[in-house]
């Protein structure tokens, strides 16, 4: 059995649009063997980027099959064998090349690859710029960083989408050199570049894509071969009827540069060429220029895109069923954790946590001030009036009531704001220019959604813990004997938040706007609160109660927050029901994420 190709597209078709279908790719079949360098060329709008997205499993074809190393391209494990340099990818703004290598090595689950990444940065000429933030790197420096990142994990296939775009001639030469070295090491290279000369100088085969169809495949002749044709420019018109020599007046400007009469010499080797030149000289011709003539890619390209439409070439036999990915029940968990770390690093770099903390601290500062002035002084006055310890409002009673009231207040004060605020993180993190880099790693869209959910919840839990502990310490400091159970009121807060954030996340995949998804989550918050309050007030109204049952039990959890604040044991029912609702909505978000195409 022959070795499976590195990549194969078989009769692939792809359309976009819901009502008016726009066909982007039609019956495209490409087969790239292992170790080969394949170039993709085509005018703007030919479907090259879509083809690369299909190739990497970032989008699913409507028809046909795509295989990477005989596996489905959206299998995270197969992505571990691919290094990808996307066009117009956005690096995390505050991250330096050094930190990016560290983060992407972690993301690939290859901590040992960090050293290799640093060497790659050095090879790309980035040694002096290791600690410069990405937003201060030039376009060429970013491209070189991306190329170094693509080399992490020693990939078997390099997919490069316009890797020399924006590079100066020296940068382009560097990339050419690197790609030739990688090819010499046996790596397969799939290069998409609008610079035909670059493609021709690197690749051995070039596919020309035009209006969604692969209209031509051009084999680039090897520079080592001596067989072919040579153009010879003579100072005077050539002598007639010399064997092996024919006139070729149209080659001036295409293959030759000198003025004069041009003839074409066909030869199998250098000896034949020199013999023909000897015959010309013997016939009295003065040779001005001799140059090898290859089949010109540009001419081929021009002919392909300006010529009449062609039927797609025979796609060949259908690829076999994809190989199943290796069974690893914990792959998803590990990938989620790795992406969560990446998101956390990104959020930390954006300083959103500090921003949230400052807002939270300001709110709590005012709250404590108000609490001290109104509640504590009022409670103290009550104690004095009602007889002090042992009376109606002794220390324990006051602690109970202050804790109970504060628990309820904190719940309602923190929940809506944190839901809206947290919802704003998702769209920037799910920006296609950002996620294309992540999705080129061995992770799936589901891993991304899970990681986002996990990261935001962990961050909000941390904030809740900090603020509740701060508040607890503040109330104790004011001399109110609040129960330590007060600290547990992060539990109802977190469960309610997780359920509401699951709604926001599901919405994010639909509306792609933090404000909109946060607004919808807040709307759910309002509807859940009002419906449940109304259903409690009108127990006979069954429809209302049924509606309330389908929403997170926000009022029930608020009661538990108050109970915990007052030092009473909570009831499990609202926690269990809200957790079930939250988990259900999260699974819907997960499916939305898996089926989304950026």
């Amino acid at each position, binding site marked *: 059995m022959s070795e499976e190709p590195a990549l194969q597209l078989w009769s692939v078709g792809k359309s976009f649009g819901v009502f008016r279908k726009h066909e982007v790719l039609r019956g495209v079949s490409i087969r790239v063997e292992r170790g080969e360098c394949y170039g993709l060329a085509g005018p703007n709008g030919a479907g090259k980027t879509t083809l690369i997205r299909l190739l990497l499993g970032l989008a*699913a074809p409507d028809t046909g099959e795509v295989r990477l190393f005989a596996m489905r391209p*959206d299998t995270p494990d197969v992505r571990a064998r691919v290094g990808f340099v996307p066009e117009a990818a956005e690096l995390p703004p505050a991250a330096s090349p050094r930190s990016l290598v560290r983060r992407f090595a972690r993301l690939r689950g290859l901590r040992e690859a960090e050293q290799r990444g640093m060497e790659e940065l050095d090879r790309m000429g980035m040694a002096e710029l290791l600690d410069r933030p990405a937003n201060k790197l030039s376009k060429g420096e970013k491209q070189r960083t991306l190329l170094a990142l693509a080399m992490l994990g020693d990939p078997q296939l390099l997919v490069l989408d316009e890797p020399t775009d924006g590079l100066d001639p020296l940068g382009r030469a560097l990339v050419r050199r690197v790609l030739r070295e990688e090819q010499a090491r046996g790596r397969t290279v799939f290069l998409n570049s609008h610079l035909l000369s670059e493609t021709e100088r690197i690749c051995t085969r070039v596919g020309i894509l035009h209006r969604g169809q692969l209209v031509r495949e051009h084999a680039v002749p090897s520079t080592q071969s001596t067989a072919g044709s040579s153009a010879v420019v003579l100072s005077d018109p050539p002598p007639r009827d010399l064997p092996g020599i024919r006139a070729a007046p149209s080659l001036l400007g295409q293959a030759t540069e000198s003025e004069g009469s041009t003839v074409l010499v066909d030869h199998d080797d250098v000896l034949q060429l020199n013999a023909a030149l000897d015959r010309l000289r013997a016939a009295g011709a003065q040779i001005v220029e001799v140059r090898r003539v290859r089949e010109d890619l540009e001419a081929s390209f021009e002919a392909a895109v300006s010529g009449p439409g062609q039927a797609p070439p025979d796609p060949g036999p259908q690829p076999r069923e994809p190989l199943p990915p290796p069974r690893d029940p914990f792959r998803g968990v590990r990938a989620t954790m790795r992406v969560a770390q990446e998101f956390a690093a990104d959020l930390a770099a954006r300083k959103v946590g500090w921003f949230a903390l400052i807002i939270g601290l300001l709110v709590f500062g005012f709250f404590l001030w108000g609490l001290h002035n109104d509640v504590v002084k009022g409670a103290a006055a009550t104690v004095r*009036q*009602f*007889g002090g310890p042992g*009376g*109606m409002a002794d220390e324990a009673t006051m602690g109970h009531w202050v804790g109970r009231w504060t628990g309820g207040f904190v719940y309602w004060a923190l929940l809506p704001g944190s839901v809206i605020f947290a919802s704003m993180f998702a769209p920037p993190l799910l920006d296609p220019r950002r996620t294309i880099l992540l999705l080129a790693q061995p992770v799936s869209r589901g891993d991304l959604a899970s990681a986002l959910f996990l990261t935001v919840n962990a961050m909000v839990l941390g904030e809740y813990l900090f603020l509740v502990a701060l508040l607890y310490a503040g109330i104790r400091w004011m001399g109110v004997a609040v129960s330590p159970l007060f600290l547990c009121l992060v539990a109802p807060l977190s469960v309610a938040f997780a359920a509401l954030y699951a709604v926001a996340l599901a919405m994010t995949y639909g509306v792609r706007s933090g404000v909109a998804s946060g607004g919808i989550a807040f709307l759910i918050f309002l509807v859940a609160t009002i419906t449940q309050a109304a259903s*409690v007030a009108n*127990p006979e109204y*069954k429809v209302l*109660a*049924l509606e309330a*049952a*389908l929403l997170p*039990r926000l*009022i*029930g959890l608020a*009661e538990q927050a*108050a*109970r915990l604040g007052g030092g009473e044991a909570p*009831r499990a*029912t*609202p926690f*269990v*029901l809200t957790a*079930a*609702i939250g*988990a*259900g*909505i999260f*699974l*819907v978000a*997960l*499916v939305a994420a*898996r*089926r989304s195409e950026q």
Partner: protein
Amino acid sequence: MKRRGRDLRLLALALLLLAIPIAYYLWNSRSVQKRREATLAGVPQFPAPHQAPQRRPFPAGAPAAPKEGKPPPPPPAATKQDPMTSFVLAPGPGAALIQVNALFNTPLFERLRQCLPEQFGAIDKMGRTLGVDLAYDVDRIALSQDGVAMSGFFDGKPVAESMIGPDADREGYRGSTILTKDGHCAAQLGNLVVSSSQEGGDCRALIDRALAPAPAGDELYGDVFMRSDLASFRAATDAPPAFHAIVDGLDGITLRANVWDSVALTLEAAPRSGRSANEIAQMALGAMALVKGQLDEDQVELQTLAEMAKVSTEGGKLEVNLVLPAQDLFDRFQFPCEKRDAGK
């Protein structure tokens, strides 16, 4: 196809998870409905004039059935002068009336009987000493500052004599015989027995009080009736200031309650001059909201009872309707109950 299959499985799991709260709701709503109905079944009607009696039938095999030849129960106050009504409604700082026969046959008292066997044994013993069965023969007990009046199936039974004991001084007064011994007195007029509550009490005054015409109006109703001008409460020195704050705002209070599994209680109070009924009503509403706010979603019984609470201020008077979860309170206060605890 595999990807779609996995997505469908995930969606099925999501639906399953979302079905949990629906299933809980369906299961719970049926259970809640039953619990609400059970709770409402145990709530007596709020005290109302001419209210229909709500009594449980005497249990079979329970204490001896009423003996033959007993006289019929006293006629209702509306058809004939009722000495008990006169005794309770006579002018004074306060009085109370308890429909003993009614209370003894409610689930609440059955619960009390289970939980306090020794105390009820002592009551039964006392009844035997008096020659009556307190659960069946005593109809009503009225309490005033000076003494106690008791009506029931006493005709032909020397209840007063049994209370005072032998060798008592005897004195005829308005058709009855007053028995006096060691500063205590008692008298019996057919089915009515009066007794002084303190040493040196005057049974003549008690008889006069019972035989005087009842004041006009029809305000004596409810299984339990209590009226007070609150003077004695105001005089209390060891009560907390909050209690005084409430008592000082009121001129007098009338409490009526019907008892079954729970207690339906009506509180009528007139504000003192300078105080507004609305102000006190707002305080009452605030207290109710506070209590309701503490109820959890699954405390269906308490929620059902809390929904029945009402506050009104008609005619410048404050009227509060409350249903107290008497049985629940026993559990909440860890009221010792041997039978219940043994069953756990």
